[in-house]
């Protein structure tokens, strides 16, 4: 009897990367048990994490824990608890999961017994972020209702395209971030009663950039036909970079192994799906973590998701040679992540340089036939730009979009059967626009 192949051809090199996240939760629990500092952090795009690592603070990301709780089916109870505590139900699912979890934790006097992955231990401090969405500092501010961990909020300027390219603006913004990071270091030194080890930070910063450069190279290989890596493998692997789940030098090695595996697939034209690749797609933004099996159904129909979610990709490589201060390197790196497409956006006459413009390049460079938009009913940030993106992709590249509404945590808001029906119909639309693009002289 031959074993039936799974619809998605998962990368072997993905598993150790995904395993790093399990390790992150274990390390957090161990640190707490040993009385060492633990931080609950918002994703901060490599601004604050290297500093925390250099200060030997264990980090845990309640955003990731929201996805974990959704995947383990534990989120609903936490959502109900946050509603009972008075938080409006239209707010971020990750946040409400965390607020409900925290309420339960404080009631139980420790980690609630039903908590997946061993749970998140009570933190020593909270690191919020002003990047991309308001929830990522307002939510942590709300945690003051439950415990007394101090909160620090990092800034990352979000200039408009034109304003960001005004002479002097770039360096002014870098100086601001450096000043903010310096204030954060002072806060940590006071809180933890020890000085920052600059040499250690320097090393971690170098490794962080190296890690992300390999991760970037991995994603560059995905332009190949057939697409060698499915978005599911991206989502499983991204937390290692985004949450800096382990020592970045170690993670860099794992991404390099992933690069080698994909390169071999590309050389041998091995696809990420075990059906002929009929359609190449991009997925925007976060997937329904509770229903990832949905992508298997689409893979069976020949849908290969070859690119996704700009905010979870590493920045394009940047030359940081000559920048000796590690805080300045971190500042330049994070700012580059956000504004790295501004020049091209300006040249294209596009005024939303992050979140929206990059998809014009992604869809063109990865030769997508369609885009699946996943507006999140509880997340403005992952949703605001989707209508605009759909419009620009159609106008500029003749690529159609399919809207499937849902949520990252709340499974009641996602209808997989309805979504599949919509997807079947969307194939005709993609076929039609293939012809339209051909007639218009596009290369795919």
């Amino acid at each position, binding site marked *: 009897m031959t074993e039936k192949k799974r619809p998605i051809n998962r990368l072997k090199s993905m598993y150790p990367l995904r395993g790093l996240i399990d390790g992150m939760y274990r390390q957090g629990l161990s640190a707490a048990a040993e009385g060492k500092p633990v931080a609950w952090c918002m994703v901060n795009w490599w601004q604050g994490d290297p500093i925390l690592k250099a200060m030997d603070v264990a980090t845990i990301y309640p955003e990731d824990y929201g996805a974990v709780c959704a995947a383990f089916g534990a989120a609903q109870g936490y959502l109900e608890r946050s509603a009972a505590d008075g938080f409006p139900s*239209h707010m*971020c699912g990750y946040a409400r999961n965390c607020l409900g979890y925290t309420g339960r934790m404080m009631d139980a006097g420790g980690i609630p017994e039903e908590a997946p992955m061993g749970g998140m231990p009570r933190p020593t401090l909270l690191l919020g972020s002003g990047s991309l969405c308001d929830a990522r500092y*307002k939510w942590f501010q709300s945690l003051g209702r439950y415990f007394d961990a101090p909160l620090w909020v990092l800034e990352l300027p979000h200039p408009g395209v034109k304003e960001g390219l005004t002479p002097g603006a770039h360096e002014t913004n870098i100086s*601001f971030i450096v000043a903010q990071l310096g204030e954060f270091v002072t806060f940590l030194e006071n809180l933890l009663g020890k000085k920052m080890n600059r040499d250690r930070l320097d090393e971690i910063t170098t490794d962080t950039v190296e890690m992300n450069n390999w991760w970037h190279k991995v994603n560059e290989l995905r332009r190949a036909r057939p697409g060698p890596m499915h978005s599911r493998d991206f989502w499983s692997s991204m937390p290692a970079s985004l949450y800096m789940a382990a020592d970045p030098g170690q993670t860099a090695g794992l991404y390099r192994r992933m690069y080698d595996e994909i390169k071999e697939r590309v050389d041998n034209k091995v696809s990420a799906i075990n059906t002929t690749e009929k359609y190449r797609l991009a997925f925007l933004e976060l997937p329904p973590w509770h229903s990832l099996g949905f992508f298997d159904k689409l893979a069976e129909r020949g849908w290969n998701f070859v690119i996704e979610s700009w905010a979870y990709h590493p920045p394009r490589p940047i030359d940081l040679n000559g920048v000796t201060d590690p805080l300045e390197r971190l500042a330049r790196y994070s700012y580059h992540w956000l504004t790295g497409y501004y020049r091209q956006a300006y040249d294209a006459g596009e005024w939303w340089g992050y979140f929206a413009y990059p998809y014009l390049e992604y869809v063109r460079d990865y030769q997508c036939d369609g885009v699946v938009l996943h*507006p999140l009913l509880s997340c*403005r940030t992952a949703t605001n730009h*989707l209508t605009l993106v759909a419009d620009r992709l159609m106008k500029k590249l003749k690529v159609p979009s399919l809207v499937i509404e849902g949520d990252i945590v709340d499974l009641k808001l996602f209808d997989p059967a309805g979504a599949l029906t919509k997807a079947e119909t969307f194939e005709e639309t993609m076929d039609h626009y293939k012809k339209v693009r051909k007639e218009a002289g596009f290369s795919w």
Partner: protein
Amino acid sequence: MAEEKGLARARAVYRNRRHRAEELKAAGKKVIGYLCAYPPLEMMTALDIVPFRLLGDINEPISKADSCLPSVVCPFIRSTLDLGLKQRYEFLDGVVMAHSCDVAEKTAHIWNIYLKPDYFHFIDTPHTAGPSAVAQHRGLLAAFGKTLEELAGKKITTRSLKEAIKLHNRQRALVRQLYSFRKPDPPLISGVETLQVMVALMSLPVTEGNELLEEVINEVSRRQDSPPQKKARLLVWGSILDNTSLIEMMEGLDASLVMDDTCVGSRFFWPDVELTEDPLDGLARRYLVDVKCPRTFRQTNDGGKTKDYRADLEARFGYLKEYARDWNVQGVVLQSLRYCDIHGYEVPQVKDYLKGLGLPSIYIEHDYQQTAMAPLKTRIQAFLEILDRG
């Protein structure tokens, strides 16, 4: 409209906001639209540019905005964008927007893309209020000033900016004086009338607004037909209220709305700009630190190893205690637009604070539609009954 005075003129401007702006535009003035409470009006006034606040229309069904902004975002901002797309703001010479919240920031880009204003500037207002953030904000205001100067074809001088600050501070002082007429029982001016004046001020040049305020203050101080006494004196807190419907509903019951903490009210007008040697310093501080919108994160644990929740609440909401005391408030209506994250996260915390003061509160959520008022009325009625029972 020009012959009308005081409250009647305020009501007329409220009902037809663009009329005066269009007259000014026809007379050769430049008019710039601004969204939210964060663009500094003084810089426009210093160049003889008329600032005109962008607001929505609760009575206008949103139709065109659906083509560029999803339905799960702030209905006020969607309504405002909808009006823009329907060319209700075509008389503007341009717009300035700020990073007042996530959706406002992103809508700024969408506005720029779809409405293609001749002049557009985005101020990336920081989220925090420490020294480096204030310095950053000052630089952002200087950059804004340069683009305004290009538009106006002249320079902002220290003198012209200081004069503009004095004019706007004068307006703020007059607004505070007007609000003091809400302290007696019954108040001398209703919540509905007050909001009409506030909206009118945001639709007129500052000098005309100040004249209007002086007329209103003169009229109200001598009025014989003040609002009737009601059982409950309420404060309304929360996200933007630019239409009188909700207040009209509350005041139609046995309640007087005597104070507000919203951005077309006290939150917008309360703090003055300090007249610093370099006026940009005072402006940077006022608009980032002193305007008490929950969109700004204020650090309350500097140097501490823990965070004291009560102290944090006091630092963030302490002004509400003063409002409640000075305006003799008996209950607080916490209201928020659906999908407003900034206020949504705040609700349980502000409730905790008010509970600590012994002030009853109710939370209501609405979606910026006239039709949404009926179910809210029942809830407010129940709240008033609770207050009545003491």
